[in-house]
């Protein structure tokens, strides 16, 4: 591994993000703000959803405006099983992941026949459909949601998600795994196909790629990864509700990806940390924190193209800059 990269501004920033996540359970009590450990657990769960969105949006150019629906599907897999007294993770988790993948397959198969604004609208429509479905099912709490009495049970001695630190580091390890999988995948042949299809889909067809199947596969992988975020969220909050798949959360995910740096591996984590910390801090200062937060978001979109990662990359001597 090339350690030189750690000395660049981006390298330092990205290392800092990971270190913050690792040490937050000790940093938070040390600064007398215990609840920051919880905040960071939540941040990393949202980051997993953002990482999965970045895979299709940042690398594949598919702007899904309904991505949060997969968080909901993963979450309800835990909630519904738990409400029937089935707590085994070996049932909840595979079903949650498979259902996320299945819904992604159906939504993707239809949405990917369109592009641009139509793709955005169709993914939004599907997500809202499933949102209203979850609101309408009274058996599972409709819009009050479902309280989960027991977290997923892995049946492993000394490994219990009810332990706060175990839960925290389960989230951390899975988030890092998602980052590594994304990095591996975007550099593989498959990853090159979806990146090239983002760059120039028509040319891909004329040099021999039926891109639809590749994009659909990426959409399904992203859906399942996002479902994982939902599985974790349900366990972490001991609660699921239709709100977790409401369109505003999909919008926040898009913003987190853009803020952190679309199409970069670590962008979504940075975006999630900045976005959620800022809303946490600002909402503690004033009730009308949206008045500050809104303009901030607009400024970032206007002036920091490429997000934080893109901004820091400007300080690097890129080999690509020579022409």
């Amino acid at each position, binding site marked *: 591994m090339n350690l030189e990269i750690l000395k660049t501004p981006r390298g330092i920033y990205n290392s800092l993000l990971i270190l913050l996540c690792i040490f937050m359970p000790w940093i938070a009590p040390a600064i007398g703000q215990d609840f920051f450990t919880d905040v960071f657990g939540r941040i990393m769960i949202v980051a997993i959803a953002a990482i999965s969105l970045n895979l299709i949006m940042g690398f594949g150019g598919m702007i899904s405006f309904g991505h949060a629906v997969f968080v909901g599907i993963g979450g309800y897999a835990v909630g519904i099983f738990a409400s029937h007294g089935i707590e085994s993770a070996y049932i909840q988790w595979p079903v949650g992941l498979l259902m996320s993948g299945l819904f992604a397959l159906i939504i993707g198969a239809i949405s990917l026949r369109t592009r641009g604004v139509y793709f955005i609208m169709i993914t939004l429509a599907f997500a809202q459909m499933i949102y209203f479905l979850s609101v309408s099912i009274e058996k599972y709490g409709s819009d009050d949601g479902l309280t989960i009495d027991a977290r997923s049970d892995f049946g492993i001695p000394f490994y219990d998600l009810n332990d706060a630190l175990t839960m925290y580091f389960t989230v951390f390890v899975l988030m890092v795994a998602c980052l590594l999988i994304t990095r591996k995948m975007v550099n593989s042949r498959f990853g*090159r196909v979806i990146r090239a299809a983002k760059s120039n889909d028509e040319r891909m067809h004329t*040099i021999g790629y039926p891109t639809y199947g590749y994009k659909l596969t990426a959409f399904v992988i992203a859906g399942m990864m996002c479902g994982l975020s939902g599985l974790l969220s349900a366990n972490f909050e001991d609660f699921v509700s239709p709100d977790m798949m409401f369109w505003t959360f999909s919008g926040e995910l898009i913003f987190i990806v853009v803020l952190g740096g679309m199409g970069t591996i670590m962008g979504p984590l940075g975006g999630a940390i900045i976005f959620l910390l800022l809303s946490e801090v600002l909402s503690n200062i004033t009730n009308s924190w949206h008045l500050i937060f809104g303009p901030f978001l607009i400024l970032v979109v206007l002036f920091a193209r490429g997000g934080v990662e893109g901004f820091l990359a400007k300080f690097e001597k890129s080999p690509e800059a020579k022409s």
Partner: protein
Amino acid sequence: MTEIMLKVENLVKHFGGLVATDSLNIEVEQGEIHAVIGPNGAGKTTLIHQLSGMLESDSGTIHFDGQEISHMSSANRCHAGMVRSYQITSIFKDFSVLDNVAMSIQAREGHSFRFWKNANKDAVLAGKAREILVEMGLEERAEVLADNLAHGEQRQLEIAMALATDPKMLLLDEPMAGMGPEESSRVTKYLESMKGKYTMLLIEHDMDAVFALADRITVLVYGQAVACGTPEEIRGNEEVRHAYLGDD
């Protein structure tokens, strides 16, 4: 008798009331360079769109290399051995020059559902891509971002990407458009050296290049082939001279 590589019969394409391709018949023999010339709006690029599968034809048939491809997808036509280049440069701007060409190589190496191995370190892809770049004289620019190439170089890359799919037949849509004289003559020489290796359908406004390269020329006006013959025959054709070539 020479084998027919491409046979277009009664091909038609309407855009509303406009007839872009009007019962067009063209035969291209294996190994020949067949130029299609004609004034602007004659339907040359539409023809390439139809041949490459980007536009569905209203009627008519296209046979290529012994099989009917009239309803085949673009990607499958490419796999069958027919590849097009673009008049307006169509490349992967945020990829390096080498990776642009490597995408074409990767396409002919079977499916790309390979999720793990780092393709950037794939010696097969990079090696073959580099060979194509050497042929096109772009090898020194291999690591440069395609977007940062000079216009003429992008035009060369455009052709390199088509060549890298290892085609039997090239559909070249104004390959010399926007090139300087030096690059233009370089590409002309290159295409000449490839004569016989690839069958080519060439659309080009540079008449020097057309008459230097083409074995046969079809003159297209309002979607119809008004003349077809050797460069000498076309040069001698009074109708074509008046309609298109001018009297100089």
